[in-house]
């Protein structure tokens, strides 16, 4: 069943172009089967990466990714595509750093240019307290071997001349956490690259296929669902599928899927908004983040500023953007970079985020046998796509929780063993 992926290269671009021939399909459109070894729900970067690594690392190819809309229609197609590993807790740092390592070679591994621009990432500190947190993060990072340090206003000005580093602003820039390996990526290309790679190894992608229910037997809850039960398959908008393993990779919709299996989650769904300006000539060579002002911004190679803020103030599954976001974020960006006041906002949008109490994911096995979760990605999960896929695939294939994701198990909430990324949030602002 193994196919070879159509090779992408400049040479082939020329040869196909010269012969006016079309490129082959990036992934197939195949009929939906009635049984798979693994069903992955959610065609975002997490679902697709999980499927890809199941096939690539463990030879499990009888796998289907079910996506209710189009591939990348969730957070994976809506995020500001910032990658970094300068987290606060050691367990966070090593985890995200593994992801960055996978991202570094992803273009070559998937034979698709995902345009990872390792341009450097700075997190600004506007108060003593946030400067202290930056130092804290830098120190933890260094001890895990991650390139991260605190720099002063002069160095910041050199990296990003657009920033107002004078002492005049309401939020003076006192320093920043500088993380050279951080950067941005073409988020859609990552999604398509994994889909294409997985397809080439035999995995099936089914778009416009919505999971409506999960079949579970033997559980404590109503209908045999819930703890103690065992998954037997899923019901979809295109028919029933039997499968011993079902993986929830649905981010903002995670609760709805877990409810189908009778598993409770510590998740609230909040929209996160982002926006893009019209392009101008490139002037901002690094990613800039300000926790105090709740903004992050980068300029794409096309010249647009892409920026975002923090999640909306109330739970909702609605993703219309708000004017408050556009106003507030523009105001804060102008506070940092008064020079962009003539740039124009082109489009704003939102995506759903699966927020957890400790700003860390929920990964691995659940009290329902055969039902796994890779959720709780909140506002930061794109960067974790590769490592999550790799580790979830390992968990499925080996039936054991890999060490790297052990701190993120669902049971930590019952044990009150939260991950300290919340600590950073509490101290940061």
């Amino acid at each position: 069943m193994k196919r070879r992926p159509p090779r992408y290269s400049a040479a082939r671009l020329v040869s196909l172009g010269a012969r006016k021939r079309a490129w082959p399909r990036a992934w197939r459109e195949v009929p939906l089967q009635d049984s798979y070894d693994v069903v992955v729900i959610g065609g975002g970067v997490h679902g697709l990466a999980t499927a890809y690594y199941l096939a690539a690392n463990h030879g499990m190819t009888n796998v289907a990714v079910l996506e209710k809309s189009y591939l990348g229609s969730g957070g994976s197609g809506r995020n500001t595509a910032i990658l970094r590993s300068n987290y606060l807790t050691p367990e966070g740092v090593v985890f995200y750093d593994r992801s960055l390592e996978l991202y570094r070679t992803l273009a070559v591994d998937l034979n698709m240019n995902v345009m990872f621009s390792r341009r450097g990432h700075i997190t600004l500190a506007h108060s003593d307290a946030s400067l202290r947190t930056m130092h804290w993060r830098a120190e933890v990072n260094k001890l895990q071997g991650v390139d991260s340090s605190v720099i002063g206003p002069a160095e910041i000005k050199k990296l990003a001349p657009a920033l107002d580093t004078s002492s005049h602003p309401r939020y003076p820039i006192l320093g920043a956490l500088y993380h050279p390996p951080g950067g941005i990526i073409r988020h859609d290309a990552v999604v398509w690259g994994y889909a294409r790679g997985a397809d080439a190894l035999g995995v099936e992608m089914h778009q416009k296929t919505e999971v409506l229910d999960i079949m579970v037997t033997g559980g404590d809850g109503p209908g045999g669902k819930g703890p103690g039960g065992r998954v037997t398959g899923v019901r979809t908008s295109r028919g029933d599928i039997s499968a011993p393993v079902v993986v929830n990779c649905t981010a903002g919709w995670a609760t709805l899927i877990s409810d189908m299996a009778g598993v409770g989650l510590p998740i609230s769904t909040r929209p996160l908004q982002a926006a893009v300006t019209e392009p101008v000539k490139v002037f901002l060579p690094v990613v800039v983040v300000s926790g105090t002002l709740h903004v992050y911004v980068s300029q794409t190679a096309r010249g647009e500023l892409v920026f975002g803020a923090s999640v909306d103030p109330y739970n909702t599954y609605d993703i219309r953007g708000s004017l408050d976001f556009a106003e507030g974020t523009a105001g804060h960006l102008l506070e940092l970079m008064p020079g962009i006041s003539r740039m124009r906002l082109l489009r704003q949008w939102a995506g759903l985020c699966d927020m957890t109490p400790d700003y860390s994911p929920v990964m691995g096995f659940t009290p329902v046998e055969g039902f796994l979760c890779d959720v709780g990605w909140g506002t930061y999960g794109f960067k974790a796509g590769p490592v999550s896929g790799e580790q979830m695939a390992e968990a499925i294939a080996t039936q054991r929780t890999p060490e790297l994701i052990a701190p993120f198990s669902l049971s930590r909430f019952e044990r009150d063993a939260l991950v300290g990324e919340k600590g950073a949030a509490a101290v940061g602002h």
Partner: protein
Amino acid sequence: MTRLPPQPGEVIDRSRPVDFTWNGRAMSGFAGDTIASALTAGGVRVVSRSMKYRRPRGYMSNDYWDPNGLVQVGDDPNVRSAHRLIEPDMAVEAQNVWPSLEHDLRAVTGLASRFLTAGFYYKTFMRPMWLWPTYEKVLSTFSPGGRIDLDTPHRYHDKRYTHPDVVVAGGGPAGMAAALAAAEAGAMVLLVEHGHRLGGHLLWGDDHDRTLAAELAAAVEAAGVEVLVDSTVTGRYEDNWTAIVQRNHPVAVERLIKARAKILVAAPGLIERPYVFDGNDKPGVMLSGAVRRFVNMHAVRPGSNAVVFTANSDGDAAAADLKRAGAKVTVVDARRGEGIVRALGGSKSVRAVELADGRRLDCDLLVTAAGWTAPTSLLNMACDRPVYDEATARFFPSVPIGNVLATGGLAGDGSPDELIDHARATGRLAAARARAVSHRLQAATARARPVDGEAPGWPPDIRPALPRVPHPALFRSTTHGVVDFSEDVSSKDMVGAATEGYDSVELLKRYTTATMGPSQGKLETVNTVAVLAEARGQTIAEVGTTVWRPPYAPVTMGALGGRLFEPQRVSSIHPWHQANGATFMLAGQWIRPDHYGDPAGEVRNTRQNVGIMDVTPLGKLDLRGPDVPKLLSHLYTNKWMKLAVGSVRYGIMCAEDGVILDDGVTGRLGDQHYMMTTTSSGAATVWEWAENWLQTEHPDWRVHVTPVTSGYTSINVAGPESRTLMRRLAGDVDLDPEAFRYMQVRTATVAGIRDCFMWRIGFTGELSFELHVPAGHGLAVWEALLEAGEDLGVRPFGVEAQRIMRLEKGHFIVGQDTDGLTKAPAVGLRHLIKLDKHDFAGKPELAWALEDPSAPVLVAIQPTHHGRVVPDEAAQIVRPGTNEIIGRITSSRMSPSLHRPVCLGQVLPEVSDPGTELTVVMLDGRRITARVMEHHAHFDPDGVRVRG
């Protein structure tokens, strides 16, 4: 020169010539000219180059949406040159060209266009990996926009809220008629027109059209409608929160108006759609509307030998306009089955057109009138999904949304009378519905005037539908051409992308970037969908469209940001601090003196003599009522039922997860009167926390909580001489150590000011009095203290000195020495957690935490033999010889009192015993050893001074 003699509808003022420059070259036009009309009148044809292939481009739609007309004006990038009016000395430049418009060296990519199919960059530049950053830099030189000047200031912008009954988006005949009818029905109406004047498409019509426009505009004005021109409704958000950008404000550069419209009427008209064929982006290929605006509004003839490809009356009218303007015109009529196949010519201009019947006509202007796109976006922002109508070959709004109504071209076609009737009916319906909304709002609002009568019902929509005039479905000819002009995406690219599997409209959009440029699909969406439908063998309805999102037209960051409202708080003493050399720090919204030049000196003076500090930001809550002790017992972890009048107690508050939320002291001022202090940053949180318990879990408790933080100016008077000083000013209180003891509170008259209170507590570890003075007299008391204590050596001290002294004393700061996971037992105050109380916030977690052997604990730390090396705050503590983190320094300072560094830190319990040696990794990588101390207090551990 292509300027025509005066035209009946021209909007230019020939008596006012205006000089400006184009790429440094002198040009001139007249007041009322857009940059586009002035350039075209001056013979300029090529105004930009395309994004990817650098093909020369000229005006195509000659309106705000023209994808080829973006220019740089001074420091303003991406200016819509067919919208922006010329001004004297305006410096206009082509953007996206290198080195010049005429000779763009990157145009070579055009030759390679066959290879550079959509998404080519995903397929190349992968190897060698180390070369990618270089490729990246090269790619970024292709970024299409203008440039910004980093020194551009954020100019004076402005915002306004408004609550009209009806907002009408669009000032064409439909919008004007709707606004008029709504105003006549008694509604307060705001009419917003994107263009520079009311009239919509009538402005470039015939005499009859213009008369109609003028009459409607006059009636609108007379009816008291508020009219905004050169303003755009840029978005419709939840509950009809409507964003309007006003660009012609007399004072502000731009103003963002936020209107809570009771009803929004969308009357944006229609947008003319380009036709896809080979060569359709050559300069000289134009839409019929573009030609009509040039000729009729600006008296400019865009060509002399025209071929007009028309499928509708607008194309016919354009042909007539051109004839009248003296051009040679050949009509190719789509309604008779005629068609065009490709535009021929050099890169800088069209020279001929090849027709479907094989003929080839020479021309310098090729006009197309192939149909319309309905800009349904404002309705889509209200969750409406447009539906495709085959007969008219355009999308229509589907489900009517109660508080958003559509009229005009968006809703259908018809004679001017039919349209105006529909618009008037829409205006009346809008007014009636607005009345219903208004009544509900007023009835539900406490402060509002009482409503008259019954709530009006929801008026049903009984407007007769507008007719729909059939239109041929013309999207693409037999050749391939450009679909998205700003993104340089051709129909061929799209077919290729669909074959590769990017065959839903959303994937196609993202893969090719079609509809993602500055016009956001206004020109190209329907053609994109049509090409995809053709490639997939589906109908347009089956393919559907991408989602329209705000803003309707791009908005400057300046307008969105507006004036920044960033509240700042200062104490009554602030002017004194300013006048006396304080260096300030920001603490949340508070501006506080960090120090007055020498923090260590301030510490020494306070420890030796007496210091005073402005601690006004300290949160203060006035608590009254018989059940205050119950509330206190619930909020704090320790006991409060038996606090005596005149006494003060310290407490820690935890959230329900046991994590420390805040700490502070509360004193009992009277029988049922208490005063609580909180940390400066915790004041608002604690107040809402207290209210939450009172209002939700214990509504039976009789307690009034009132925040009085800035009602009192708070001054800490600390140091061995503080009692002497206080004696001089607070003569009515017995300050003897026995009479007014540590942890007690007294009300007092200080320096003649009544109603002060003070308590004997000391964060600094010194004998100290914390004075709270009614704020209107705070400065007077501060100055009185300085005057009265001059001989005692009284000096002010700031936050930094206080931080040093509290650290010498080992007092922790919530949020600095604790973090988002620190539970109360970790800070060494286990005795303050009283599990024998019936209930308090976080009780179960604290019970479990008291038993938890693994949580980090807070300890005092001092470096061992590195006398003057001050460990850095945030330095990590590791297991010796490894990188395994087992703690961290949370606070650290050089102690001026002890002449050695003192720290607090969190460490794992296994290394928390006094005397344990710790390895601290300094920020520069050095590892030093430090020792866990016996007491949190490095200085005066027995508290002799503070009790003195």
